[in-house]
Structure formats: structure tokens, C-alpha cells
């Protein structure tokens, strides 16, 4: 393959990857009542409709709240597991890693279904947020684990021993030695957990109770019956929010988030 041809080929693939996202953003500024291309004039009309639509606003609040709860729980559990994995797992290391990544490797739809049956079997039901948040924690846990354990790769247990010999207790050692070193990994993992939780669909769809739709569910329901650009405005806001989180974390905080 000649070089210019190869470069053009790759550019086409990049365009293919961005096309549907770009289309949604452009469609959101459409002034007309339907999705037409080219747009019939530019306007923020559909953003106003969206901001005044209590159904979507409630869905955003639900999503943000669930994502926040998920991030805190997943962040704590995942960080603890990563600490065990790096410093104490020993021969169990590979087992711990596979177990922690399992929610990522198993099909999400199967995890969602089995969790739905389970919460009913044990009498939890879906009218509280427990099932939903547990599902979100399961799905986001691998990302916290990956990021924190990556940031601990260069951690030398001797530092902890040195602090111990100088009389530092368990908690002081964690707070003064370990935490500052793994902080970038913890923040990166938590931010990514937040984004994943905000965007996740299938788990939320199966485990939602009546009147507790998250934003992706509300959007999905809306798209089944409506074709106005309001959905594009909602989507664009969601895209901007996630991109902002990533750009702030990578540019401002200088973090490198591990996604794999």
C-alpha cells in the first residue's frame, strides 16, 4: 500500500468513527421541527425545549445522583482491592485480576438480566435504587481497579516498611505514603467510573423502577416514538458533559486515564 493511500484510508476510518457523533451535534442546532439536512437555519430552539422539559431534567438529576453514589462506592471498593492486588495478593494475583475484570468481560445484557432476577428473588425489587447502584458499581469497578493498580506499579513496599519502623500506624502509612502516590490513579479511575455510570444503558434499563429513568433510558424511550431535534440537544449536552470531564482531567489535572 502506498503511503498517501494508506493515510487517506486511515482518515476515512476516523471520519467514520466521528460521523454519527458530529451529525447529532449539528442536528441539535436545527431550527426546523424535523431532522433535515442541511438544517433549516440555526437556532437554540431545541435546547430551550429541552431545558424546559421536566422529564429530561429529572432524568439528568437521577443520572448525576446515581453516578455520584456509584463513583464513591466503586472508588473505595476498587481502590482497596487494587491495594490488596498489588501488595498482598501473592500467588492469587492472577485470580484477583480476572475476578475484578469479570464484570467487563461478561456480556452486560446477561449481567443485567441475572441481577434483575436476583434482586427480585431476595425481595429487594426495583422500587429502590439498591439494584441499580449495585449494577453500576459492578460495571465501573474494573475501571477503578485498572487505574489504581496501574498507578501502584512503581510502588515499593519498602517505603511503607520504613514508615512503619519510624512508628507510623496503619492509617498514617496509608494517608501519608500510599494515598499521595496513588492519587492520580484514584482520581482518574473515579472520573472514568462517573462517565461510564452516566452513560451505561442496559443495566439501568433492566433494573430501573417505575419513574426512575436515567438520561440514556429517557433518551431511548423518547427516540422510539419521537423524531424532533430535541433528542439531539439532549445528546449534545450529554456529550459536552463527558468530554468536559475528560478534558479537565487530562489537561488541567494532567492525568492519564487508563481505559484498557
Amino acid at each position, binding site marked *: 500500500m502506498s503511503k498517501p493511500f*494508506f493515510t487517506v484510508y486511515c482518515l476515512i476510518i476516523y471520519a467514520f*468513527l466521528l460521523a*454519527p*457523533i458530529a451529525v447529532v451535534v449539528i442536528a441539535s442546532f436545527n431550527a426546523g421541527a424535523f431532522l433535515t439536512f442541511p438544517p433549516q437555519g440555526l437556532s437554540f430552539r431545541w435546547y430551550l425545549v429541552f431545558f424546559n422539559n421536566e422529564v429530561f431534567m429529572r432524568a439528568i438529576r437521577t443520572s448525576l445522583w446515581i453516578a455520584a453514589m456509584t463513583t464513591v462506592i466503586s472508588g473505595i*471498593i476498587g481502590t482497596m482491592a487494587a491495594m490488596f492486588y498489588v501488595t*498482598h495478593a501473592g500467588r492469587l494475583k492472577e485470580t484477583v485480576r480476572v475476578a*475484578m475484570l469479570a464484570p467487563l468481560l461478561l456480556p452486560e445484557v446477561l*449481567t443485567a438480566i441475572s441481577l434483575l432476577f436476583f434482586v427480585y428473588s431476595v425481595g429487594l425489587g426495583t422500587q429502590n435504587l439498591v439494584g441499580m447502584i449495585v449494577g453500576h458499581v459492578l460495571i465501573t469497578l474494573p475501571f477503578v481497579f485498572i487505574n489504581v493498580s496501574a498507578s501502584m506499579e512503581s510502588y515499593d513496599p519498602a517505603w511503607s516498611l520504613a514508615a512503619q519502623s519510624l512508628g507510623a500506624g496503619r492509617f498514617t502509612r496509608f494517608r501519608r505514603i500510599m494515598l499521595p502516590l496513588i492519587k492520580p490513579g484514584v482520581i482518574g479511575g473515579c472520573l472514568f467510573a462517573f462517565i461510564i455510570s452516566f452513560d451505561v444503558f442496559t443495566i439501568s*434499563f433492566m433494573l430501573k423502577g417505575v419513574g426512575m429513568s436515567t438520561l440514556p433510558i429517557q433518551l431511548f424511550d423518547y*427516540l422510539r416514538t419521537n423524531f424532533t431535534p430535541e433528542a439531539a440537544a439532549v445528546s449534545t449536552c450529554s456529550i459536552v458533559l463527558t468530554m468536559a470531564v475528560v478534558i479537565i482531567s487530562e489537561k488541567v489535572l494532567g492525568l492519564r486515564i487508563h481505559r484498557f
Partner: protein
Amino acid sequence: MNVPPKKRLGPLLLIAPAAILLGVFLVLPYLNIVVMSFRMPGQGTPYGPGFTLGNYGKFFSDFFYIQQVINTLWIGFLTTFLCLILGYPVAWQLARGASAFRAVGYALVLSPLLVGIVIRSYGWTILLGNNGIINRTLTGWGLIDGPLPLMYNALGIIIALVHVFLPFMILPIMSAIQGIDPSLEAAARSLGASKVTSFRRITLPLSLPGIQAGCILVFVLSLSAYVTPSLIGGLRVKTMAVTVVDALIDTFQWPFGSALALMLSVTGAIVVVIFGRLTVMKWKA
């Protein structure tokens, strides 16, 4: 040497919350769904008392469901194959190309992963619909008379699935190629191998683990995809995952839905194992 019990218990407390979470909310539910698939269908309730093989009998006796599994597998195969063909050159460029390209390209490959799957599938409905951008543009140019059937069929589902899962193919192949020592390729070239030969004999075989990982990931993900087939396929084309979810949410057939979900997973697992065996054999030979 006697270690005080507190010291040995400490580290275990670190892993305990994760272990309990995964044990109670992942392992138990998966065991539960296996049991559920053998339960009797209920009358007005999700499931009835007693156990039966009837749910699996219903699956194997109704050609509709077998046909659907075959369709879903086909969609999965084609999606995986297209992702590999389209993704490999990009993975190679990200691993070996000019550095200016690499940083931007990497961001471009990752950014779709940060956009929710509902939004990405919605983008494809705008592009592929009968009144969508592609059909309107082609009609406007006078190339076609009526809209091409791009949506509500397997073609539309495959296009959108390739888009959604392409990054999962590119990233493992990219890291596999990055792991190959560039001096191997240089040595082959200095010994007179053409670019094509050096790629065919050195780069491609050494990147096989990445190809294998990417293919398995994309195949499994596309079998269990729900949102994209449901939005693009509409009511006309249903993949297995869509049928399973609908059977559970709309008609509350929990035991039968579980049997369907497990049959899909088992079929997928068999394909993955066969694929793994074949590629390992080829790799050794």
C-alpha cells in the same frame, strides 16, 4: 514464627468488600439464572413452582428461535470481520505511524467510547434512515430514485455495530504491534524481504494475539448488544439479545427468557473456544 492474627486479617479486609460484592451480586445471580432456566413458566407470576426441561425444549422445537440465533451469529461474524479489516491498518498506523498522527489518532479512536451507546446509535438513525442524510444526499444528486433500505435491516445493524465496536478491535491490535521489536522488521528488510513479505512473515504473525483478543472482544460484545440492534433494527429485524430482553420486560417469561439468554451465551462461548483453538493452531504452525 507466630504472626499475630490481626496482621494476617488486615490485608484480607482490603479485598473483602470487592469479594463480597462480586460473590453476592455477580456469582449468585449467574447461578440463579441457570436455575431459573429450569423453572416452570408461571401463570400471572414470573415463574411457577417446580422444575422442567420445557424451556429448552421450546427453544429447540421452534425454528424461529434457532433461526434467530443463526442470524445473530452471522451479524456477529460479519461485524467482527469488518472491524478487523477496517481496524488493522489504523492500529498499525497508531503503533508505527508518524508521531503527529499517533496522538490525534489515538484520541479519535478513544473518543467514541466516551459517548453513550444510545447517542451513537441515534446518530446512525439520522444518517441511515429513509429520510436520513445518506439517502437525501444520494437522491439530491440524482443517483437513486427512492431511498435505499439502510435501516430496519441487518445491513444497518452491522454498519452501526462496526462503528460502536471498532475501537475494541483497534486498541488490542495496536498494543500487540507496539510490543513487536521494530528491529525484527528492519532485519527482514535488510535481508531483502519486500515490505509486503516483511509484513506477512513478521508483523502479521506477531500481532496475532492482538487480533485474537480484538476478535473475541468484538464478537462477544456484538452478540450481546441490545441498544444498537433495537434502535436500528426496529421491530423488523431482531437479534437474540433484543428478543431476550423483550421476552423479559414485555411478557415476563423469566424461565424461558433465561433459557434463551443462556443458549445465546453458550453458543457464543463455543464459537469463541473454537476460534481460539483454530488461531492458536495456526499460530504454532
